[in-house]
């Protein structure tokens, strides 16, 4: 009779899974920012870090598939939940003031999320596909100084930089709700720690996307 026997059958199990995949992506994002940031400091450092990430077996064959699954899962589950939620209110209110009781960010996770995913499509096209081609089609694994050059080339185009900036603004909006919300979903709420988590959440949601924007602008302007 009970749906909890089916994996991810219940609303709370789904919410929990959504939070865990989100928290995992938050850690990944921070790691990604740190590596990107080395490109501002020195080309060699960036090349070395990228080469390590691109050739290390653990990263490539363990972490990368987990990451791909995490992204895919977060996206698909987000869509499934959104569809269910929409069908839970077939007739909308004629007059409603949702802004009185919740933030725009919390109500529009699907919009900000889809914008980020669209951006990921471009990001894969820009960096991941060429990377796969270099490694698996051309069979080149050992050139360790090409990454910085590729990065500079991409950020010469003002349109691309503009899209990057916009995408990271959407990401910031997504994280402002998502970060602290994940803690509530896994049941972590505490009189003393929850206000701290909310502060850290806001700082993370601004600083991390701003960091990515800074790096893109830096390379654009450095040209």
């Amino acid at each position, binding site marked *: 009779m009970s749906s909890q026997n089916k994996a991810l059958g219940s609303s709370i199990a789904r919410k929990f899974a959504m939070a865990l995949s989100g928290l995992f992506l938050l850690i990944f994002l921070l790691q990604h920012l740190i590596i990107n940031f080395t490109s501002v400091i020195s080309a060699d450092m960036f090349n070395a870090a990228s080469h390590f990430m691109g050739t290390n077996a653990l990263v490539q064959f363990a972490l990368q598939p987990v990451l791909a699954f995490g992204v895919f899962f977060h996206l698909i589950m987000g869509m499934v939940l959104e569809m269910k939620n929409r069908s*839970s209110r077939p007739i909308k209110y004629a007059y409603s003031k949702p802004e009185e009781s919740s933030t725009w960010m919390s109500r529009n996770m699907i919009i900000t999320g889809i914008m980020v995913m669209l951006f990921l499509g471009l990001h894969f096209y820009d960096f991941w596909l060429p990377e796969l081609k270099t490694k698996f089609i051309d069979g080149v694994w050992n050139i360790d100084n090409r990454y910085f050059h590729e990065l500079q080339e991409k950020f010469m185009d003002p349109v691309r930089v503009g899209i990057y900036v916009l995408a990271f603004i959407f990401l910031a909006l997504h994280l402002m709700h998502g970060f602290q919300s994940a803690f509530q979903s896994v049941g972590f709420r505490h009189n003393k720690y929850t206000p701290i988590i909310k502060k850290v959440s806001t700082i993370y949601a601004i600083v991390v996307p701003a960091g990515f924007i800074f790096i893109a602008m830096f390379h654009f302007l450095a040209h």
Partner: protein
Amino acid sequence: MNLTLKIWRQKDAKAAGAIETYQVSEISEHMSFLEMMDVLNERLITEGKDPVAFDHDCREGICGMCSMYINGEPHGPDRGVTTCQLHMRKFKDGDTIHIEPWRAQAFPIIKDLVVDRTAFDRIIQAGGYVSVNTSGNSQDANAIPIPKEDADNAFDAATCIGCGACVAACKNSSAMLFVSAKVSQLALLPQGQVERKDRVLNMVDQMDAEGFGNCSNTGACEIECPKGISLENIARMNREFISASISKG
């Protein structure tokens, strides 16, 4: 004061409804919102028209029957009050007031502003109880020591009147605040321990089966709840559910 009311009228569960406009005059600012509705209905009756159907019972904020979505918010613009406790002094002469029923798949409309909230009753039946020995030798509840903090939290959760404003306010029509209040109230007390795991699993199961949406932590429920039920309860229910799912397989 004179007011324009835009009210959702719907003949029965199957009929297509529509917003209709009414004028009411000489409304005292000391009236409650429901008294204002009574004034309108008395007039409609004398005119030989069908009065607006709405739920109400205690008219003092304890039964949870009144349920109007007023000017875009459940129970109207005031905080910590039910529709019956909302005073007309919250409005100004000449205002237009929008009045709609709770909107949710799980709360089908019966007529006008009256919705069927028996989904909540079925959730309670699924686990919102404690089993007590009634053979005549049951222990006095007061004889069981309970930490003050737990007693307070259980009491706060127990103040939920089951009005459904949380569902009405939630963009996802989620019933998590209501269900979590009922789960918390019993999970915090020694009397609730026997069925603790089954309770949360069965109540959440029933909640899902009723067609309520998924909670996405917008927090609208907590703001709109007339009894100030805290999101703390939802976090507790998430914990209860996950640990019960793991230990019960």
